[in-house]
């Protein structure tokens, strides 16, 4: 089997002069096979861990969030229409609807992002580096499900070219690329990413008078398929229920504190993820499982995760002590289940390239993200979520934190007795 595959690859190998084609070929070949290179000039044996494995483990940790997020896109859509309110009701509809929304985003993300990476790798004459495997998997999980694919593409092109390739490719970026893509959409197309209704998919309006908004694929492929099985289909005339606003818990908290939130959602709902939000951030247990997997296998830094939790708790407690408005009075432990704190902690803040690189620095870095993220969340009048901005801010400051840690090390060395 291995010989047959090797044979196949050697037959389709394009000429080295066709750079782009050969780079693409090389990317797929090294995906299938660990190269047969042996060590020289240095250590004779190497550990089995390499960048591909590292990236794939992060993607694996995301899979539970993907499944939950796909289901939840469908679930929120139907909750808005007042249909299939139970977990198992209309399961096939919810899952397929979520896939219809999420899968195209994933495909576009990978094709556009990897396409740019392939192009730059062939230009520079080196192998395609694996950084985009994770970024591309993260991007659909943080974008609104109804985001037009062309906006997604523009955001990815911006983030990969200006955020990563301009600095030298994988391992050289200053800021987190997935967050850069999201912040691009946030500032360039704010209507698509802020407001109460963007987090529920497929409605003409998330308020009175809105109806379900289905596309061609749902009506003409899925509906006939489901009716062939005798299952329920999508109803294009379904209307949004009275009083529905599509507000996320944070949006409600910003307006009226914990009372406003608890009128619409229970803490259990918020924890398990039956709330509007981006695909990745809502299902907290799945994120926690993914975070545990990454921390236990040593793929992500547990220092950053723990210090971020402590920083967030610290700031939450300070706000509770101050208690100036209803938002500040929300008990600090409820902030974990609202918004995207856990997702940002597990997958965004722990990106080793953009975080602080010294162990001491990581504690300071994580703590400050927790503190500043909470400040932005609670005190920002325009947008009640702070992790994207806090992480990008600290990404820029991480080299400064490292600088001071290293200076401490240098000064300690100067004090050695002669």
């Amino acid at each position, binding site marked *: 089997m291995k010989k047959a595959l090797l044979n196949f690859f050697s037959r389709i190998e394009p000429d080295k002069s066709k750079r782009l084609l050969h780079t693409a070929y090389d990317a797929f070949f090294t995906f299938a096979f660990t190269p*047969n290179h*042996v060590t020289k000039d240095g*250590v004779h*044996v*190497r550990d089995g861990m390499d960048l591909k494995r590292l990236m794939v483990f992060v993607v694996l940790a995301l899979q539970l969030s993907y499944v939950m997020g796909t289901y939840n896109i469908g679930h929120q859509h139907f909750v808005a229409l007042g249909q299939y309110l139970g977990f198992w009701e209309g399961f096939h509809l919810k899952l397929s609807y979520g896939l219809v929304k999420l899968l195209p985003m994933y495909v576009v993300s990978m094709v556009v992002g990897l396409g740019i990476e392939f192009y730059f790798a062939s230009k520079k004459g080196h192998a395609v580096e694996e950084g985009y495997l994770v970024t591309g998997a993260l991007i659909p999980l943080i974008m609104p499900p109804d985001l037009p694919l062309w906006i997604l593409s523009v955001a990815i092109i911006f983030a990969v070219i200006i955020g990563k390739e301009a600095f030298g490719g994988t391992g050289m970026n200053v800021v987190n690329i997935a967050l850069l893509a999201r912040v691009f959409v946030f500032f360039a197309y704010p209507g698509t990413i802020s407001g109460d209704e963007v987090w529920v998919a497929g409605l003409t309006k998330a308020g009175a008078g809105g109806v379900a908004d289905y596309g061609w694929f749902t009506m003409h492929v899925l509906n006939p398929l489901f009716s062939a099985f005798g299952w329920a289909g999508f109803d294009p005339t379904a209307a949004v229920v009275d009083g529905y606003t599509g507000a996320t818990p944070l949006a409600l908290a910003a307006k009226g504190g914990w009372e406003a939130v608890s009128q619409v959602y229970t803490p259990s709902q918020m924890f398990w993820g039956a709330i509007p939000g981006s695909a990745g951030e809502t299902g907290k247990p799945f994120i926690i499982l993914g975070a545990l997997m990454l921390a236990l296998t040593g793929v992500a830094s547990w220092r950053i995760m723990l210090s971020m939790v402590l920083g967030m708790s610290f700031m939450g*407690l300070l706000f509770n002590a101050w208690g100036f408005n209803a938002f500040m009075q929300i008990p600090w432990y409820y902030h974990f289940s609202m918004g995207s704190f856990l997702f940002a902690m597990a997958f965004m803040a722990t990106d080793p390239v953009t975080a602080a690189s010294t162990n001491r620095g990581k504690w300071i870095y994580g703590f400050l993200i927790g503190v500043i993220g909470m400040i932005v969340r609670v005190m920002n009048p325009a947008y009640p979520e702070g992790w994207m901005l806090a992480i990008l801010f600290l990404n820029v400051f991480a080299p400064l934190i490292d600088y001071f840690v290293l200076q401490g090390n240098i000064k300690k060395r100067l004090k050695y007795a002669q």
Partner: protein
Amino acid sequence: MKQKQLLKTNLVLALALLAQSAYAHGSGGGATLHYLLMALATLVLLVLVVRLVDGGPSKSGNGPAYTGGGKVVKLTKGFDISLKGAAQGSISHQPVTHFALEPAQFIGMSPIPKLLVQEEDTVKAGDLLFFDKKRPEIKYAAPVSGQVIEVRRGAKRAIDAVVILADKEMVYRSLDVVDPEKATREELVAFLLESGVWPMIRQRPYNVVANPEVTPRDIYISTFDTAPLAPDLNVVLDGKEAAFQKGLDVLAKLTSGKVHLGLDANGKKAPAAVYTEAKGVEKVWFSGPHPAGNVGVQIHNTQPVANGGVVWTLGVQDVATLGALFTEGRFNASRVVAVAGPEIEKPCYVQTYIGANMGDLVKGNLDEDDARLISGDVLSGTKVSPKSFLGFYDDQVTAVEEGDDFDLFGWLVPEKSRPTVSRTYLSYFTPKRKFKIDTNTRGERRAFVVTGQYEDVLPMNIYPQHAIKAVINGDYENMEGLGLKEMVEEDIALCEFACTSKQPLQQLLREGLDLMQSEE
């Protein structure tokens, strides 16, 4: 001590704050205080955890009973690579006929040293072979007696090796031995330089042959080797105990400080008496995984070398050879070498001399003909062909399989298990199992991505990734400030093993060290 007290006060403070907040629960002003105290408790908790986890690379403590209450430095970072084919049993004799000194292995040696012999000359063991024109006082001597059958030349007439066909019975050059009790330091140094033993003394930083004009701050000797498949240094000095002690006595006279012996507190039994009962030396016990046995790590964790300072290091068999100059009056370059590795049929200890021919050493013992032969260990040894020779400073030969095979989805589900520092592999959880290993790179070279990985396997207060990045950037100040000089190849070799991005760290380290040495 101070650290423990600090931790205790922190813990008490945190508990007090939490207890206080549990009582001060109420509304209005009481609630504010409650939350403020809890916020403070969060901060204290953070500081506590940081101190506990990232306190430093070593802790002082008590060791096993045989340390007799001596100071034990417990090194927590590092990793033991557990391989098949460790040398065992009693010391055997392997018929080796060819020996050589290879000038290129001495760092900084000119490519064409000045030869003192020619082909077809007869030499005695201890006769001088060559010296470096840049440092003419340091002489290099023949390890065995016999006939110089070849002066192997390489590119641009560089001298690759001076090869000697050994006699069956060794004949030794007669030496004018000085009495170490009565001689001055200058006379001792001059004698050592003339005898050919001097190159065995290396200095830190840079790990070059020691400069005879500089008096070192201290001399350090590590009496245990934690490298993969390294020989057990408790058995290699069999019969040479008196020479070893004499060597220590002589070395004590050459330094303004002390001779330090690094002793092994890892084992269940005490190390050999020749080390535990050595006289006139400072003994420090070390425990922990590799690289606890590296002398550079031991220096760093006792008294690091300040910028501009110089210390000397020797191997235990080198000390015995130095002592034999005085106890036997001759240049006794015999060595006990571990022939080990997964590709060796019967791993064993071999009694031979410095510079033994590699093909002869492993003859009849090699499982595969195309195995990689390494003079030294798999981490920092040199790849050699059977025609080449055992390194001057090496006391082991390792044979591993060449890994020049493709592995289908090898980065996800590799065909064979190997020792690993990564918890993504099941083999991490069976560290005592003995593995076979091959030389496949397991991935391609990438930019630095993972951080904190090198610090996990280096028990020194150094940030290796930043020091190496300073080398790549040519940033001299940061190279020096971050402690590049405190490391040599064998210290960073384990970081290179663990490196996810497959960077050539030892090469980069030597580039940085060369730059710093040239600027001095």
